[in-house]
């Protein structure tokens, strides 16, 4: 930076010295120091912060950031079988085209007269999710699937006036950690054991734990461990017999082929929409959905914004607005339901674009294609001596557990060998779920070809051999 000459910052129009002078004069200040008259002298920072020297030119900045990014090797460059809550699906170009539009990217909290397009796009997102889920109410997205699950459980406790929730033990440790933090201090979260052969929730265990104090029974479908819970109807019936609410956490990209949970008895359905058109972004593509029937006792317990369609003074014109705004913390602070704030609206709009592009046929095709590929991968991997796949005898969607106990090799070593061959192996479960032994969670999606899976199987055979 040149000495003695004030820097004019391109992002700061009034940093131009002459304009700055005129404005100081207009406000009657000698210097900008005068503007902070209410900040006590004692609390003023003396001197300058110690920060890196700025990269004032756009080019220097770009080069620096790209230099850091170059130190990453991505799942696009490697052949990746990582999933466990963040998924490598193809992102249609139109999804990026729409969410990079400045009008959407930089809008925020405009009224319907400022931002009609934002309201309509989010209403349509909710409407398409409603079709996928066979439910009438879907929220403007919350932060992520973890938050959606945690809020769904709290909704259930408020609706029932009860304080205990039951959760399938096959949930991920991270999501359970979030739920436990969010359920403090008044909600008791207990786990329900699973059948070690099939992964399915143990119905006897569930019956033994369900009581008149149970607010909700929660399970994922497909589960964190990839298998499909096939007895959702029986689980829902047990919950309902005790007056509890059935909460199902579903991966929306599976619902072109899998039954919407509402059809087997779910009262609240929730999950993450990252799979619907968001890049993985090192975990930056998440957004959460919550869906219910259109019943007031459910609607009034949503903390999120709900956009509804409304008439205008012109016959036939659509307007939009907030439904039951008075339930929110925006309206009534701590008297509202949990809280509402900036969450993940842009990803909701993007998921809407995704569903509009895919249509009914696309969602069925992608579901079928993923299942065919993951089955093929399991069959190929199963040929390897000492490897057990799937670890659970049940239908699977895109993920499955591979057990390596019979090979005598730890997953960590196997994954290192795979990495040396340009492959990201499955997520190591050995510390998270020690009862599964040396196991890894593999994910296969529509991006994988036969050749990719053969390459994986060959590399695995070498790694364990």
């Amino acid at each position, binding site marked *: 930076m040149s000495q003695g000459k004030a820097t004019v910052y391109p992002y700061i129009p009034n940093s131009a010295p002459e304009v700055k002078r005129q404005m100081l004069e207009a406000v009657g200040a000698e210097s900008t120091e005068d503007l902070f008259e209410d900040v006590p002298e004692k609390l003023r920072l003396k001197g300058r912060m110690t*920060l890196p020297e700025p990269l004032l030119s756009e080019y220097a900045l770009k080069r620096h950031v790209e230099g850091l990014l170059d130190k990453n090797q991505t799942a696009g460059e490697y052949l990746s079988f990582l999933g466990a809550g963040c998924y490598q699906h193809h992102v249609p170009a139109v999804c990026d085209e729409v969410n990079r539009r400045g009008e959407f990217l930089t809008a925020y909290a405009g009224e319907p007269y*400022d931002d009609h*397009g934002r309201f309509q796009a989010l209403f349509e997102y909710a409407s398409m999710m409603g079709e996928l889920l066979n439910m009438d109410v879907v929220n403007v997205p919350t932060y992520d699937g973890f938050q959606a699950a945690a809020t769904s459980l709290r909704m259930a406790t408020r609706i029932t006036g009860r304080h205990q929730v039951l959760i399938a033990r096959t949930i991920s440790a991270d999501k359970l950690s979030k739920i436990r933090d969010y359920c403090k201090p008044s909600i008791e979260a207990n786990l329900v054991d699973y059948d070690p052969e099939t992964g399915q929730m143990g119905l006897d265990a569930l019956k033994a734990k369900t009581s008149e104090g149970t607010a909700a029974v929660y399970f994922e479908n497909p589960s964190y461990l990839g298998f499909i819970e096939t007895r959702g109807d029986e689980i829902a019936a047990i919950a309902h017999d005790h007056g509890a609410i059935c909460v199902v956490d579903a991966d929306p990209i599976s619902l072109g082929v899998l039954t919407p949970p509402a059809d087997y008895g779910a009262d609240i359905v929730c999950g993450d929409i990252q799979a619907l058109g968001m890049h*993985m972004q*090192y975990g930056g593509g998440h957004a959460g959905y919550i869906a219910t029937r259109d019943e007031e006792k459910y609607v009034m317990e949503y903390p999120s914004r709900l956009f509804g369609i409304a008439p205008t003074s012109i016959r036939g014109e659509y307007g939009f607005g907030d439904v039951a705004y008075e339930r929110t913390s925006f*309206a009534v602070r701590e008297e509202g339901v949990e809280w509402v704030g900036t969450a993940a609206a842009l990803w909701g709009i993007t998921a809407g674009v995704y569903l509009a592009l895919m249509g009914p046929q696309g969602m069925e095709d992608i579901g079928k294609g993923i299942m065919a590929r993951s089955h093929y991968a399991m069959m190929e991997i199963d040929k390897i001596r000492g490897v057990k796949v799937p670890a659970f005898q049940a239908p699977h969607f895109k993920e499955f557990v591979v057990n390596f106990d019979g090979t005598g090799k730890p997953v960590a070593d196997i994954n290192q060998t795979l990495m040396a061959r340009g492959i990201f192996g499955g997520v190591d479960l050995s510390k998270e779920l020690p009862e599964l032994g040396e196991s890894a969670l593999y994910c296969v999606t529509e991006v994988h070809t*036969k050749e990719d899976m053969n390459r994986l199987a060959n590399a695995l055979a070498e790694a364990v051999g």
Partner: protein
Amino acid sequence: MAQQDITQQRYTDGKPNLRRFHQARWDEPINFELSREGQRGVLVPEVEEEIKDQVGDVLATLPLTVRRKAPPRLPELSQPQVLRHYLRLSQENLGADLNIEIGQGTCTMKYSPKINDQLAGHPKLAELHPLQDEDTAQGILEMMYRFEGMLKEISGMDRFSLQPAAGSAAIYTNASIIRAYHKSRGEADQRDEIITTIFSHPSNAACARTAGFKVITLYPGQDGYPDLEALKAAVSERTAGLLITNPEDTGIFNPRIEAFVEVVHEAGGLCVYDQANANGILGITRARDTGFDLCHFNLHKSFSSPHGCGGPGGGACGASEALAKFLPVPLVAYDGEKYYLDYDRPDSIGKVRPFYGDAPVVLRAYAWVMSLGAEGLREVAEIAVLNNNYLLNRMLEIPGLSAPYAEGKRRIEQVRYSWETLTEETGVHSEELGIRAADFGVHYWTSHHPFVVPEPCTLEPTESLSKDELDEYVAIVSHVTGEARTDPELVKTAPHNSTIHTIDHSPLDDRSQWAMTWRAYRRKAGGA
């Protein structure tokens, strides 16, 4: 017919006049209405024949209970139709890239540099899976580590977690840390009260309640500043902590903030600084130097990441050394050779969000700080505050407007104004002024509820607007208030130049009519 003359609408002599604005109006149908059977928007990869042969009919492996019976009734649209539909909807928005976005006070609607958006979409980040081996994610981990270092310097705090998804999520995280802290001292049951102020963001109250605390809300004292005596009366052995914004949403900096912190500390509580309004004090004053134990920044506000129609954002939680052990896991660490994710934090409150934070948002915030440096950040604060006080002076020239509390004093980053006098004189309400302002292409917001300031409006010019643009905004508001005096019906019947006309809100609060999805609307409105 006389020739139309728009001389008065032109930008003459450097003096902004009123634009003949009209918002885009495409009368765009709901996308379900555009659907035609059999159209396709994108095709998915075909499964190879060898796979099909080997696996057979995979759906047949599914028990009937879990096999979808009828396809979802999604719209069937071709790709160009989808694109046109959404681009029309995009045009029907007033994003910060388009309008003089100073009308959403407290939200710091600053310029989001395009280069940072471009970098945030880079495949080297977009295609990165969060569970990759750390060796393959050294670039993003280094960036997160460096950015944490910047936030530590800006706030004086000792550690940061970038995990919380946005501002309110960060407030909740800090409330959860307060709970964990008191539990670690065996006082969790006793300390069940959180104190906040009415001009702190509503999420401070709401998140505290969600975390299980009772909420005590303080109102300003006689001099218009947060009331120290009221705080002294509120604290007790039940005080868990203070959640407070400074400057408050009125734009007033609490000059007694250090005494506030001391009083709460003496009572055994923790002090949490909601730094959503930090833009005007970057490099001026720091949270830790005032004695705060915890703080949070909104990366989508002060640190320039775009607001995305309401997220994704980023909430960064900072903690003093004593409280850092409670931050969410993992934290990003560096062992001298390698950046890694540190999960070995037994006292942590655990996870508050999947993985480690919103990486593209962190990238934008990091790049923004790198483009400015220490002097630049201070310039941001100074110009934002200069802009705000310039706007304050100009706005107060408009008859019927006041800036309640601490009158005559300068403000920091925003001002909550009151049109009480104008409303008394004209019958026109602040909300109506805002709708009419949209007719001239600008956004205008009232305030969070409750309207403690009567007929409020909250403006925050940030550092991103030029003097001429501030003058233009004032000219629009001045014109609209003039209309309120000469032709109040014109204002009350606004909008006139919007995408749509006056909305009938009654169905939105009526369970028999409200419809949050197209299917519910069709059912309730009888397929209208």
